[in-house]
């Protein structure tokens, strides 16, 4: 199973958390396991590679409100593989704000393979009343293309387009990882050196209680 870190960015109230909640909690795929832990949310998608199923697990880091006063810690960005930059198509300045988050992200993450997905949320609000839209789809799409970002408009409320975001990110990351593996095998091996999982103490040889419970 491949595991990737995905971070959420965007101003407060554009619906970042709703998108993730929709993705993580919707049980339309019975084979998808989801977990709510204290640290982050995790969710898997399945992608196909020559008829073979590959499971991709996302470790999704929500801002937990720390973006409100631009108080995101370096830890938040570190080692992220993908980012969802969210804006609200019914809020006038929200695309500009998303763009500043993209800028911030490119500053903080030193990874050329970082997958960035620009998401315009709340399309449901414009279904009955196109007047409510204040951010033009074309404008956002053009910006995304020029900056090498993936793009779509979605609705966290109805679920429209949500699953597809993660599916696409998963496929992109899988391709990147495949290329990395063929060109450079040592990278992953190096990272494991000296690493300690503190949740897994070494089993004591003469501790009878340590084996199974």
């Amino acid at each position, binding site marked *: 199973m491949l595991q990737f870190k995905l971070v959420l960015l965007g101003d407060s109230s554009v619906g970042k958390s709703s998108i993730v909640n929709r993705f993580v909690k919707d049980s339309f795929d019975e084979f998808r396991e989801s977990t709510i832990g204290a640290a*982050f949310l995790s969710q898997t998608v399945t992608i196909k590679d020559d008829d073979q199923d590959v499971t991709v697990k996302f470790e999704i880091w929500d801002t*937990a409100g720390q973006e409100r006063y631009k108080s995101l810690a370096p830890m938040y960005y570190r080692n992220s593989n993908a980012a969802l930059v969210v804006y609200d198509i019914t809020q006038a300045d929200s695309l500009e704000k998303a763009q500043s988050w993209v800028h911030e992200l490119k500053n903080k993450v030193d990874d050329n393979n970082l997958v960035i997905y620009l998401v315009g949320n709340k399309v449901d609000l414009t279904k009955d009343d196109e007047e409510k839209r204040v951010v033009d789809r074309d404008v956002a799409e053009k910006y995304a293309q020029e900056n090498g970002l993936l793009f779509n408009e979605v609705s966290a409320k109805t679920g429209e387009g949500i699953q597809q975001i993660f599916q696409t990110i998963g496929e992109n990351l899988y391709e990147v990882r495949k290329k990395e593996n063929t060109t450079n095998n040592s990278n992953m091996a190096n990272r494991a050196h000296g690493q300690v999982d*503190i949740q897994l103490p070494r089993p004591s040889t*003469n501790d009878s209680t340590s084996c199974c419970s």
Partner: protein
Amino acid sequence: MLSPERRTSMAERRPSFANFSGNSNHIDTLMVPHLAGIEDPLPETTPEKVDVLIAGTGLVESVLAAALAWQGSNVLHVDSNDYYGDSAATLTVDQIKNWVNRIHNSKNESEPYKNAKLYISSSNIGPDCKYASRDFGIDLSPKILFAKSDLLSILVKSRVHQYLEFQSLSTFHTYENDSFEKLTNTKQDIFTDQNLTLMTKRNLMKFLKFVLNWEKMPEIWQPYADKSITDFLFNKFKLEKPQVFELVFSIGLCSNMDTKVPLALNRIRRYLVSYDVYGPFPVLYSKYGGAGEVSQGFCRSAAVAGATYKLNEKLYSYNPTTQVATFTDGSKVTVTEKIIMSPTQAPEGNKHVPEQKYEVNRMVCLVEKDCKEWFSEDESAAVVVFPPGSLKSGNKHVVQTLIMGSGSECCPQGTSIWYLSTTESGVRAEMDLDAALEALEISIIRESSEEITNDNDIVQISDDGRPIINSVRLGQSFKEYVPRESVQHLMKLSYTQLTSTPPFDVVNPALFDNDELNNRANSVNKFIPNASDNGIIYTAMPSSEISYDEVVTAAKVLYEKIVGSDDDFFDVDFEDDDNDAMPTGASVNGVINYENAIEDDEEDIQMGEDDSNEFVGEMEI
């Protein structure tokens, strides 16, 4: 006991808990914390009213913020800096520059830092140079994490460990006679170490067995209770100086010869019981920066539980009568319970900051040497201890050194960070740190010199015909080696940090009880006219302690002051609990089993017919 007036916890307030609270079978299994920061729409503006305001995102403050947030308190956590970590921050070179400037221009009457001196090699670090400022992560309070310690348990319990990556550190060098001796810290090492006589090996094993359960044998240590640990080890256990120094200064990480017996025994045991919990090493450190990362992790945890974060926010004053805290940007918040503040964040016109009478003198060097000679294979960090009297300066206090290589991701390949610290004060401290730095430089040049390639050079025959093998590529034969090169310093920083915590002691709970202290008018209940900080409780600055050991104790004391009891300190269970077996080694429930490589399988100790009651020398049990 849980105070009847205590706030309901996150878990209890969660809908899933409420729904099932009638069914006692479900209460234990459905303690799913409510993820306020994730599940709820967040308020748009600064909260107008909070239970607790915490200023400073250092270690103790961050652990406290997370504990309170998960307990259900409404927490506003601010820092006057534009970064997380405060006194525990991990900073880039540019940030260090600003930090030094801030100290020089500080208007805080109780500024806990002084004498900051900084050198940066501008031809090496900066735009268009070999290294960038952000290639480095420099810790203001470098720390190591013992594998069996209260903070480690809390890290696992709170899931904050999932934000961090840990690496092992197994190499502890003791500097003596102008060379580094690698620590003899395992049974195997003791019995393969050809430097030790059989008598010494036996005495050492006796001591190691004793120290694991020392409290149960008062007849051995009580006569020495007020004596120094060195006295005890020399006289009671007949150990020789190299072993005594290793035990006291490298294993016990004590500050000087006079450390009292019970305190030192605990410190020595801390190392031994931590050994082999996760593998053949006693301590860990977090990648990308030590204390700075850990505090960021706890802040994130607090945010997930609903705490509000605001950097660049400095308190101007607090009015305990109206309960209104005013910030320098004009914003205000009503604080219904307590304000907890690091001395670094004290507002101008403060009159309550506790006296900071102890000095920790620190030096940080970025050097262009990878120092892998000092690390174990696959590791990227080492501890080097300079015992009293081992340096040219005739040091009375220990100089402790933490070496971080590029594998810690705190510095680029080919470089390392050297953290030196001492509890000595004033000019003597400067002399000791300089002498230690010089000793480190000479050693690394000798060891990394390409001229020394023949391993045979390293084995020597001692006077009595035993071969002496030096553990690192450094031996007596190189003593006369004259270095032809010098170590390139990329940055050198020295500063004095003040603290109210005595060296190698844990934080004194009375510090927060203020009334009992008669140093400075440092009482929460006593208001001083015109003071900007009436009613504020100050935390203690980090002590000289190189481990994280004081952090949880200090956070718990404060937690209890606010909540009324520390029973539910991090009393959270997560949905994913059943996926992860609770660690048996981390003494999560406070039950510590002293099992390790030293105590078990005694039979393979080649001691002849071992009778555990038989003691060499004058030992009696």
